[in-house]
């Protein structure tokens, strides 16, 4: 079976090592924080000026001065630090953030990312910090469904939507498989109840086979 969002979040959390400084993009990537190993010191960065972000507050304990990039109330963990926006984006652009996880409309086999606009006429454009994260973090992970709601592959030969960043994506975690961006195109490193042939058919791309010898039991890990 393919992975639902929470299981995919749990799968990505497995690849975030202790000691990493991590930015989880707004939307689905924020789910990953629920699956980071308990007790591991992984420092979450939020673009609006904080390291050491904690979970959402209990009812009645909301602090409107303490929010995340999605403008959702959060908490501070011991050792947290606040800073202004220029420092916060210097952390991204300056290569100080180890991993960021972003959503995507499209990722090209060259690692180009499109995730801020579909270019649809009449839509109100909004980019926020996506372009800074995309080009700044040491590793850029994308978390997405492989296919759009209408069945088109989000992995493409070249993005047709407006770009967020050029050649910036490291790895794409989808509900069907994990893909590394390599000089030879997308390399499949892990599949979730599908085959390379099926993935080739769905994406229309030539894929490199680098699947693990032993599949990892994600379902059990995320089921807790």
């Amino acid at each position: 079976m393919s992975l639902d969002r929470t299981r995919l979040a749990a799968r990505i959390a497995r690849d975030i090592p202790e000691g990493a400084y991590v930015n989880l993009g707004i939307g689905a990537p924020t789910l990953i924080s629920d699956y980071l190993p308990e007790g591991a010191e992984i420092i979450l960065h939020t673009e609006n000026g904080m390291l050491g972000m904690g979970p959402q507050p209990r009812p009645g304990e909301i602090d409107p001065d303490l929010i995340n990039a999605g403008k959702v109330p959060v908490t501070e963990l011991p050792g947290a630090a606040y800073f202004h926006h220029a420092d916060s984006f210097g952390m991204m652009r300056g290569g100080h953030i180890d991993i960021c996880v972003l959503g995507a409309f499209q990722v090209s086999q060259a690692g180009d990312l499109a995730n801020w606009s579909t270019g649809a006429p009449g839509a109100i454009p909004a980019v926020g910090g996506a372009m800074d994260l995309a080009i700044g973090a040491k590793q850029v992970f994308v978390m997405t469904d492989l296919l759009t709601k209408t069945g088109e592959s989000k992995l493409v030969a070249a993005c047709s939507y407006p770009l967020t960043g050029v050649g910036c994506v490291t790895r794409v975690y989808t509900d069907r498989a994990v893909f590394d961006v390599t000089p030879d195109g997308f390399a499949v490193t892990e599949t979730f109840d599908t085959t390379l042939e099926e993935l080739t058919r769905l994406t229309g791309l030539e894929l490199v086979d680098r699947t693990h010898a032993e599949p990892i039991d994600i379902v059990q890990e995320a089921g807790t």
Partner: protein
Amino acid sequence: MIDKVRADAAAAVAGIEDGSTVMISGFGRAGQPVELIDALIGLGPNELTIVSNNAGNGDVGLARLLAAGRVRKIVCSFPRQLDSWVFDGLYRAGEIELELVPQGNLVERIRAAGAGIGAFFTPTGFGTPLAEGKETREIDGRNYVLEYPIHADYALIGGYRADRLGNVIYRKTSRNFGPVMAAAATTSIVQVDEVVAVGALDPEGIVTPGVFVDRVVTVGERNWLEGGVFVGADDAEGNRGPASDRTAPGPAASARTKGDAA
């Protein structure tokens, strides 16, 4: 004696004229100087250019300024939000100009203005529509876009505590754009919960030194603090108590419901 403290928010925003460029701090509602914005609406200048990360939330603060028809253009990174209906309506009706800037470029352009930098090369945005028509350069094998500073006539900033010299500290993530904008504007105006005696702020902890600040005004304690102690709120707008106890928000409603707010 230096005294940057003004009697009220109206006195703090005095002199802002038609056509001014005004920076407004805040990320969403956090750090948005609602009382200063309300005073600006009361003062009445038109044709403003606003520089702010977002384009207003709900019907208060920046959203209320937009609804009042005072803004010609907004420079921001993320106008579209769940509660940005005021901006959305104006934009769709073609009644407001938008300059969309990636967030890190926005803040760095503001920083550059305050730091006396003439322009800078940034990798952010290279190869994207937001860099179209801009000068680019390859430096050590990486591609960069040339970006210019954003100056402003005024900055309206949401601080936490200040002294009469204009030294300011902030609260948590409401700091966001405040310190950077304070340096970038010709006249920087900071609202705070409380003005404390000179010497009461720890010199090691001052975030915005007074040299960057021109005017300070006290607007009363935020709703989720009591005597400087965090007591919590029941929603991100800072309301307390069951939702049924609250009055319905109107166009002039503010998240701040207690204290001596202007």
